[in-house]
């Protein structure tokens, strides 16, 4: 039997950033295909294309043997493609029944037929064995139940293809089992399912086929029976470590930062480590492992519920979301750099515009920020140069500990090299650096030591010599 859905050679770029660079995928009736890939491998973009939110630049989509074009979310629904979104797109103010039929209400004489709406919704929920009622307000449901609402919505639309985008990321063991029961039920009814997850044991428990993406390309597909976990990991990592990171050897000095038993409800637990002068400490983990949350607590943006942080000096954070958290886009470069340094710039309470500009110019020169001048708004700069401004504003304080959360995500090679150079110089000058990154080659090349987080806990520690890509990925993904 030919596959139900066939994708060939899909390409998609967003303003010069390549998200998909040749993706092939086949989904079969009565089969669950697991989609694997590191963060940024192109999985989310694929989901958006299949759900009609984005259009591919080139490439073909065949459904049931005929070439199709998924022009909009409505088109996707009419074609029978249902998506359970990772971020759980439901309407909290509405009831479950309304959520199932949104924009496709059963009608009688042009008006919403509430009786039919309720009974049809209840039938679908009963079929799924859901533990809540059609009349319940979605606001009162748990995350797991909201995922079930999304699955039920797909069923209402008679979906033949169902995409589950990391549905288990925030579910308990019992809730996962419930979700898997429903997924198997749909598989047995002849649906083609695409299951996206980072957890290997779930892949082997639920799926029968696999597809691996790397850097926006398909790098392997096949049947899971007889496939080893290590093989999948190799496919996911599979690239040579780039030799562009100038790592200086620094002899670590005294302890700068000590973290003991740190915990924050529902985010991370039992975190303990030390950081020494001159050290670059890598923290690796998958999205949702709790790394950014830990960084926010270390920095003081959020409070810990338990544990102690002892630090001889100040801590600065270059956050992952540089546009939302790292900088104020409409402000000038000078104003952004001045923000954490106002006390130095205004010793008597008055800010001197001249000193602000001088400080900014100094860092524009030091980091080779490509800008018209200190008064240019940060929002007009390229991603790499924005990141340099965020770095500059904290470097100007000369913090004892600098935490960098995904500092090179989505920036060009030149800016990346500059960021790495700054990190090296900072460590060499006796500061401590914590590097949080999802990019294996970067973590491996830059770190003196690597900690691996998984589901809110530290799972492993590697010395520089022992930190190989496969070892890190295995520790990060429940191996």
């Amino acid at each position, binding site marked *: 039997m030919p596959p139900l859905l066939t994708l060939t050679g899909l390409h998609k770029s967003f303003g010069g950033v390549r998200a998909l660079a040749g993706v092939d995928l086949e989904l079969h009736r009565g089969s669950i295909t697991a989609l694997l890939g590191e963060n940024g491998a192109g999985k989310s973009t694929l989901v958006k294309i299949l759900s009609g939110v984005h259009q591919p630049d080139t490439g073909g989509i065949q459904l049931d043997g005929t070439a199709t074009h998924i022009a909009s979310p409505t088109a996707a629904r009419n074609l029978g493609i249902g998506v359970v979104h990772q971020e759980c*797109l439901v309407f909290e103010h509405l009831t479950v029944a309304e959520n199932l039929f949104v924009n496709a*209400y059963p009608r009688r004489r042009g008006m919403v037929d509430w009786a039919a709406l309720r009974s049809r919704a209840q039938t679908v929920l009963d079929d799924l064995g859901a533990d809540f009622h059609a009349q319940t307000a979605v606001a009162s449901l748990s995350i797991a139940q909201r995922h079930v609402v999304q699955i039920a919505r797909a069923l209402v639309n008679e979906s033949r293809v169902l995409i589950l985008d990391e549905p288990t990321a925030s579910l308990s063991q019992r809730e996962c089992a419930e979700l898997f029961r429903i997924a198997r039920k749909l598989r047995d009814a002849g649906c083609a399912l695409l299951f996206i997850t980072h957890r290997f044991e779930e892949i082997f428990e639920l799926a029968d086929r696999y597809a691996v993406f790397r850097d926006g390309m398909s790098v392997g597909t096949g049947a899971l029976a007889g496939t080893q976990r290590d093989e999948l990991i190799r496919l996911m990592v599979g690239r040579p470590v780039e030799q562009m990171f100038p790592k200086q050897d620094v002899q670590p000095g005294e302890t700068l930062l000590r973290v003991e038993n740190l915990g924050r409800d529902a985010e991370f637990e039992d975190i303990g480590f030390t950081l020494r002068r001159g050290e670059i400490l890598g923290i690796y983990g998958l999205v949702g492992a709790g790394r950014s949350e830990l960084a926010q607590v270390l920095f003081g943006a959020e409070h810990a519920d338990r544990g102690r942080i002892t630090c001889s000096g100040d801590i600065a954070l270059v956050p992952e979301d540089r546009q939302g958290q790292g900088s104020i886009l409409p402000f000038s470069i000078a104003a952004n750099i001045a923000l954490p340094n106002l006390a130095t710039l205004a010793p008597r309470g008055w800010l001197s515009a001249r000193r602000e500009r001088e400080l900014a110019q100094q860092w524009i020169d030091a980091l080779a920020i490509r800008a018209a001048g200190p008064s240019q708004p940060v929002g007009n700069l390229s991603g790499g140069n924005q990141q340099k401004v965020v770095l500059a504003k904290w470097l100007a304080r000369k913090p004892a500990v600098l935490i960098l959360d995904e500092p090179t995500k989505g920036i060009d090679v030149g800016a990346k090299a500059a960021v790495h150079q700054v990190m090296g110089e900072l460590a060499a000058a006796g500061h401590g650096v914590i590097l949080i990154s999802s990019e294996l080659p970067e973590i491996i090349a830059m770190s003196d030591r690597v900690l691996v987080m998984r589901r809110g806990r530290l799972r492993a520690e590697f010395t520089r010599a022992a930190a190989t890509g496969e070892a890190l990925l295995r520790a990060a993904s429940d191996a």
Partner: protein
Amino acid sequence: MMSQYRDWSPVARRDLNFALLTLALLAAVVFRYPTFAAPGNLAGVLDDTAILIMLALGQMLVILVRGVDLSVAANLALCGMLAALFNRSFPDAGILPVLVLTLLAGGLLGALNGVLVWKLRLPPIVVTLGTMSVYRGVIYLLSHGSWVNDNEMSRDFLAFTRARFLGLSTLAWLALACAALFIVALRRMPAARNLYAAGGNPEAAACSGIDAGRMQFLAFTVCGAIAGLCGYLWVARFAVAYTDIALGFELQVIAACLIGGVAIAGGAGSALGVVLGCLFLGIVRSSLPLVGISAFWQMFINGVVILSAVLLSARPQGSRRATLESPR
């Protein structure tokens, strides 16, 4: 009864509680001043509140889709002036052309707000703050700053709002019809359900094939058409048209929506709640002279009622957040 009550949606429960509160207020006033309960007086309260009810129902649509229309009162004044000028030029045309003219003109003014919000993605508060002044300015251009007085209005033009049927004026009947229409339509019309979806979660709405911008456009257009019609009703009721009629009235309209339980963040609210909110304000306003409190306290009391309403519409702990709190 009680077990059923627990199954009610939060909005329905709020409406019931608010209805009881409004009745309690009415009972308290009547207990102290029995004359308040005279049929003529209650009908008068409804007459006084009718325009507010209609405007608030229109405004509610806009707030449901995360917008706000500050230009309703200016729209009302402009359409009122148009109606008066039309009537002065064609005194014998009858009432139907006036109704059609104001509905169309108001709808166009509303649609202009809607297009700016939908196609140019401008924030509704900025758009309507601008059009509010523009519409007032246009009245000045049309009328050259002069008034249209009752001696320049035809008899039909003035009589329409005053005609009585079963003890209620046309105004009151229009408001009741409007309320009934909204209560049914918001519940049963597919487009209206999409309005709630688009306001509740625009991203999820987009993924369900609902164009949230188009929903905003529709809401602004309907709101504008109602404001236009109310323009004629206002001018006929007070028998005068000039640049500054209903100045600042948009704030009362928005206040009535909030008191009636419409979520300012969009996506939640009921037509019944809005009508109750208007009646509550109407009862407060007409009982103030009886109690011997100057009408100048009306603003103060409105404010206290809004703040109490917001405090009482108990949102679950944790979802309460300050405007400046950083999103996470």
